């Protein structure tokens, strides 16, 4: 990282944005004087902290001085609340630790203060939560604990490093609201480190854009977002999926990336007689056993009565938050798990009733691309070996060299790279390899399970454009599983919203995004941070967590009907039930 300078005004918020490897997190560690623990060093320049009792130079301060600052005058919130909290100590223990250290409290007063802090971050039953362990809390609740810990000593500066990246959108909205409230309560300045332009636009007064360790642009948030002056910033902004950007369009459309403007045309679904895949009443449940004899006491209602269809060349997006059963539907479709009931028709054939041999052919037709390209590629196999294996299994191998070259070409990778290993590629390239591997067996349907969620925005835009081009060229159908509403709006023809294992609303993209009917869909859309510096977000309801899909045996979710809003736009008729669940009145 080189030659970075910025100042955070008292009570104000500065955001540092950039993609992986840009030096965002290094900046935050430097501000805490923590860089030396990661093997780094500030070679030149100064970091100064001005407080009511004089200013401190962090870069030259001794470790003893720094320890009094850390957690006290400057504190941090990290991305992964599970791994950032100590699993073997109670939440209360971890909050009181800093209180006792910096504010000299006794155990008893520190405990009272910790309960008050948890109450402040709207933790339900704050006092009881003190004795719980991190693994007993949900992701959103853990992040609340982190925030309570960070503000416990009323810091002058709060550094939030990708603090909501791992959270669901509705939970993210709550956490952002809580941080805003804390800033107002304690007059704290903040540095937000994020790759999510929506979050940044909602929170920041000023923005620093970084790339490859350099500062590319800095200025007032509004100016940087609306009228970026630097080329990199402009490219970055163009790649950010913006919700609402597709309003009024029927068909999805690739991102207008630099050099790819010519392909930014609508992608309509070709007319056809019958759908490629049709699911009817598919239900998948997992048993939860307990007790001496392993009796089934609970069931995870992962997917309940799922019905939808996808045509050739069409993208159906499955959206919902964690535990909503999106991935289960994908896994059921590819027979990674067997459904309890329901039919899956592929080109008119009921594939669940086929014998295993015939079913193998249909497994070829439905391919999967996962979220984590590192974990889904064998690190000890070259790209060529990874691509050839599925073709060999399905007897499709005729001319390996030519086939591998064609596949790599299809995903815009040079065919010379066929003999490299996965670690020699970037994340985006690895994801392209995964897509190539799925294409290797010439499938009809690709299940893209959070395929682009872990990628940087510019890479994400490229991979999405690639997927859309492949769809147009090969007539692929996609089941696009995602929780990023802005990306979904960009890529999908139709959208199904899932909640607690059920589809609560399904319709064309315009119907769902422009005329959402179900309260959950509305809430989901409202929670998405919008990249528009002129609108400050509405206050969100801070209570409530996402209910879980685990239910006692013989106690399914109350059945309900569906209402048709418009042609092809269906919604679950369960509003009353939904409200009760949200208020915690119905416990599964």
């Amino acid at each position, binding site marked *: 990282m080189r030659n970075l300078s910025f100042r955070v005004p008292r009570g104000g918020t500065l955001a540092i944005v950039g993609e992986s490897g840009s030096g965002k997190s290094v900046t935050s560690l430097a501000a805490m004087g923590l860089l030396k623990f990661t093997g780094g060093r500030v070679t030149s320049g100064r970091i100064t902290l001005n407080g009511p009792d004089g200013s401190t130079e962090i870069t030259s301060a001794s470790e003893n001085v720094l320890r009094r600052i850390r957690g006290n005058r400057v504190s941090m919130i990290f991305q992964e609340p599970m791994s950032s909290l100590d699993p073997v*100590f109670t939440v209360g223990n971890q909050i009181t630790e800093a209180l006792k250290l910096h504010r000299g409290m006794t155990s008893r007063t520190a405990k009272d203060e910790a309960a008050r802090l948890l109450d402040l971050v709207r933790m339900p039953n704050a006092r009881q939560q003190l004795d719980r362990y991190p693994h007993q809390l949900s992701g959103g609740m853990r992040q609340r604990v982190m925030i309570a810990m960070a503000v416990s000593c009323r810091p002058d500066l709060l550094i939030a490093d990708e603090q909501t990246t791992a959270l669901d959108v509705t939970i993210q909205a709550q956490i952002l609201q809580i941080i805003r409230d804390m800033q107002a309560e304690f007059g704290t300045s903040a540095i937000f480190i994020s790759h999510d332009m929506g979050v940044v636009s909602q929170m920041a007064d000023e923005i620093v854009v970084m790339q490859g360790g350099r500062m590319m642009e800095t200025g007032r948030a509004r100016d940087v977002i609306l009228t970026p002056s630097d080329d990199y910033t402009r490219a970055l902004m163009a790649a950010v999926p913006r919700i609402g950007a597709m309003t009024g369009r029927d068909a999805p459309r690739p991102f207008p990336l630099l050099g790819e403007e010519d392909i930014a045309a609508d992608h309509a679904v070709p007319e056809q007689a019958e759908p490629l895949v049709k699911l009817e009443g598919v239900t998948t449940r997992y048993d939860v056993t307990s007790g001496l004899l392993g009796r089934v006491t609970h069931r995870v209602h992962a997917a309940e009565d799922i019905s939808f269809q996808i045509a050739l060349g069409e993208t159906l997006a499955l959206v919902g938050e964690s535990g909503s059963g999106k991935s289960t539907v994908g896994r059921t479709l590819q027979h990674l798990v067997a459904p309890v009931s329901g039919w899956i028709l592929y080109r008119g054939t009921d594939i669940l009733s086929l014998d295993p041999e015939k079913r193998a052919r249909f497994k070829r037709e439905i391919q999967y691309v996962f979220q984590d390209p590192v974990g889904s590629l064998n690190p000890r196999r070259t790209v060529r070996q990874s691509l050839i294996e599925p073709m060999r299994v399905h007897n499709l191998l005729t001319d390996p060299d030519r086939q591998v070259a064609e596949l790599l070409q299809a995903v815009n990778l040079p065919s010379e790279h066929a003999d490299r290993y996965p670690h020699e590629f970037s994340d985006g390239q690895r994801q392209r390899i995964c897509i190539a591997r799925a294409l290797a067996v010439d499938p009809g349907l690709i299940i893209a399970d959070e395929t682009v969620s872990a990628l940087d925005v510019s890479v994400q835009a490229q991979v999405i454009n690639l997927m859309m081009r492949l769809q147009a060229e090969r007539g692929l159908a996609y089941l696009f599983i995602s929780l990023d509403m802005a990306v979904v709006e960009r890529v999908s023809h139709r959208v199904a919203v899932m909640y607690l294992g059920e589809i609560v609303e399904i319709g064309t993209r315009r119907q769902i995004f422009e005329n959402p009917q179900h309260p959950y869909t509305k809430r989901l859309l409202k929670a998405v941070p919008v990249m528009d510096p002129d609108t400050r977000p509405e206050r969100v309801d801070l209570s409530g967590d996402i209910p879980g899909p685990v239910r006692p045996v013989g106690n399914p979710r109350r059945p309900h009907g569906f209402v048709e809003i418009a042609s092809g736009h269906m919604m679950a008729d369960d509003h009353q039930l939904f409200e009760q669940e949200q208020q915690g009145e119905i416990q599964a």
Partner: protein
Amino acid sequence: MWGYLLRRLFESALILLGITFVTFILLYLVPADPARQIAGRSATAETVANIRDQLGLNDPLFVQYWRYLAGLFQGDMGRSYLQRAEVASLIMARLPASLMLMVTAIVTELIIGLTIGVVAALRRNKPADHSLMIFSFVAISAPQFVIGILLLYVFAVQLGWFPIGGYGTWAHFVLPSVTLGLLGAGWYSRMMRSSMIEVLNQDLVRTARAKGLSKLRIVTRHVMPNAILPIIAMIGIDIGLFMSGIVVVESVFGWPGIGQLAWQAIQRVDIPVIMGVTMVSATAIVLGNLLADLVAPLIDPRIKTK
């Protein structure tokens, strides 16, 4: 919790039952004839046959096994062929010495092993780390009888700090427990080192630093409790290692424990004694593992007893 304990005890009993069967069959297949051993070389064939008859060695295998098992349930492990005493009383007379040795050896190996592991992890890739890891490598590779004799020579014969052998005072414990514990100390130091390094790289340490905690507090309060979790399960397995080590160590130091008893019994095909010692060590191993599994959830709240 109680249901879990009950189930685990039931499982343990099943395992022990399996062990009685396997060892019984194995010893039955041994070609040496215990009756001949008891009678001595000069005995007539008739005497040997009489002894065989007396001991019930002519009964079918399953009758013998059943007799043994029925006795076992009443606390009767049979009589030694050679020592004219109940196996149970032979073992009970020697068990305390062995158990005491095991406890001191576990304490020794934990103190040595964990200390080395922690220091090596904190000084990773520095000279202190390298020399400590060489030490642990030697401790793992050196045969126990060599270490035992070496320690005896240096500290008992040359320096005269500790008695040369026998049992009685605390001074008698030092050399045998170090000999027995050194192997485990080598293993634990390596495990603790890598476990510490893993935890040191976790986000929770960054959080602790960001809180402004001192290095000492971070290591003792956050890193060590997390690092020690995988070690706990090992202690249970370790008791099995001790059982084999104890035979060697007790011989070297003339320790009056069940290791020596087993060694003598094996040499003279004293089947009831061999069976008895095997059962006692198997029980110790099974209980050790059970104990480790019961302690683990107390230290790691994420482990639930089901």
